[in-house]
């Protein structure tokens, strides 16, 4: 009966068709910081457009989680808004990885409120601001409303950065304070802050620039992110295996990608909200990555 034979064929047809669609090249797995995520999305797409014949994927799970995935072998490249701790480095080396850091950009952490409060805070006030229960606790002239805190989660490099800078590495005051909502996804933080006039939060500068109309920036010691002398600036890293550790084919695409990113940034194509790294850092990174390529510098 020809009709009976037809049906199974019709069902398998889409499978056969889409068989050829997925690319068979190598997989490039990039994981880590949500601060770097907007830049990585742009650059990864450019990388694919520029002729990468494999599959790229990006996980936005926080710098800490990115390092963990590097250690257990799942990730080829880690994007991080903080550097690797000694303990993480030791675990990586114990697992056979040889992480090498490249600075690709600079970020200024933007301190934002939901619109109910604006103004300037001093560096000294930061600990009290971030743990205040009500806005008026910090400044009597500010409204007497509870502070709704939207902070990056414990895996986030931004979280680690602020805890180190403001609380000297002790994360208990910030975690114990009232009304904290945590998320490793900065988009969620932005959404929370812009919907609540009494909200307070912090994240990478690019998230502020993308959502400028609905967020209110709080200046620190009189300067804004991007200005020289802004206290909350930090480098953004890409971590990848050194060539001697890259035993398999996987090492090549990862280092190629890092080289691509460095060249991309050197060409002056940083996405909005990302700042230029200090002079010399990019060229130093480029030298290191090109030297390690089998053919030497192109």
């Amino acid at each position, binding site marked *: 009966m020809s009709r009976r034979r037809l049906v199974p064929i019709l069902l398998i047809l*889409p*499978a056969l068709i*889409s068989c050829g*669609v*997925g*690319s*068979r090249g190598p*997989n490039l*797995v990039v994981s880590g910081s949500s601060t770097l*995520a907007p830049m990585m*999305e742009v650059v*990864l*797409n450019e990388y*694919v457009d520029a002729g990468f014949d*494999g*599959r*790229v*994927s*990006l*996980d*936005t*799970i926080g710098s800490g989680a990115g390092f963990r995935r590097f250690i*257990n*072998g*799942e990730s080829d490249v880690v994007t991080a808004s903080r550097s690797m701790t000694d303990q993480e480095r030791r675990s990586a080396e114990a697992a056979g990885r040889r992480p090498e850091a490249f600075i690709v950009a600079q970020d200024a952490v933007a301190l934002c409120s939901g619109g109910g409060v604006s103004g300037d805070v001093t560096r000294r006030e930061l600990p009290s601001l971030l743990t205040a229960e009500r806005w008026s606790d910090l400044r009597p002239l500010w409204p007497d409303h509870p502070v709704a805190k939207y902070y990056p989660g414990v895996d986030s490099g931004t979280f680690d950065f602020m805890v180190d800078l403001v609380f000297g590495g002790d994360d208990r005051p910030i975690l114990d304070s009232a009304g904290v909502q945590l998320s490793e*996804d900065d*988009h*969620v933080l*932005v*959404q929370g802050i*812009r919907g609540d006039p009494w909200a307070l939060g912090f994240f990478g500068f690019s998230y502020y620039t*993308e*959502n400028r109309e*609905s967020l209110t920036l709080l200046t620190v010691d009189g300067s804004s992110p991007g200005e020289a002398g802004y206290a909350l600036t930090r480098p953004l890293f890409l971590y990848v295996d050194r060539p001697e550790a890259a035993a398999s084919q996987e090492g090549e695409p990862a280092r190629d990608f890092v080289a691509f990113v460095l060249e991309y940034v050197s060409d002056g194509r940083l996405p909005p909200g990302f700042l230029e790294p200090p002079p010399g850092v990019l060229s130093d990174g480029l030298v290191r990555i090109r030297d390690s390529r089998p053919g030497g510098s192109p």
Partner: protein
Amino acid sequence: MAAYRRRIQARRRQDRLFRIAVRIASLIPVLLLLVMILTLVVRSMAADLGSEARRALHLTGLATAAAGSFWVIASGLAVSAPIALVAALWMAHPTRLSRKDPLLVGVFRTLVRQAVRIPNVVYGVFALALFLRLNALAPALGIRNLGNASILLGIIMLPNLVLMMEQELKDVPDGIDEASFALGASWVAVMVRQVLPAAAGAMGAGILRIAARMIGLASPFIVLGAPSFVSAPPAGFGDRFISLPVQIYQWAVRPESAYRGMAAFTSLVLLLCILLLDVAADTWKRRVVRRREGLR
């Protein structure tokens, strides 16, 4: 007399009011459904598909996610449908076979009935525990790839498939297996060569219905670990992938209206897929039933 009439009128009024109240209350779900679809349609407009750059980016994302969904469901079915079929054949057989094993029957039935109701997130947590442990033993297996996700989805579908298949096998008209027995066939021959083919059509429809439910499943994959984007559909079981509902979830939490618009648009696409699958399943099932009526 007048008091009596007044009482009757009061009761009639209560009846009418009650009827209206129930009517209104019953319309609310339909109304909400309409509001939901409308919201999605309106918000889809903001998807900014007009601009060339955005369109390429977002539609690629949609296509990649759709392919991912297809592959994970197909592989999941490939894993669990055979197992479910064999188990259902065992359970559904009308003669002594399963009665020889009352313990297994009891355990099996209870397990399957409870397993259907376990929340999907919990399956995700279970799978994460399993794959983390397995990966420690054999790193080549990976944790968050298409293969493992298919196994996860397969296990989620397994109880549903078993129940559906058992029901369809039982629904086959008795005349078929009775006639086969009358001709001296062994029960294996009966089940495999008569009852199963007779139930195959209905089972196919059932599989489509289960697939329709599974397309929308996102939480187990998110718990297992889903990327925020992938550039190409999966080509092998070690590849990372993303499915439609997970992609919607990733886009929906972004504050920019273009992404929310994409989330709304993709939701409509997802709903359309589900509707198509459901309609296909329904039509197929109806055709099977009609053909069976003809046999009587």
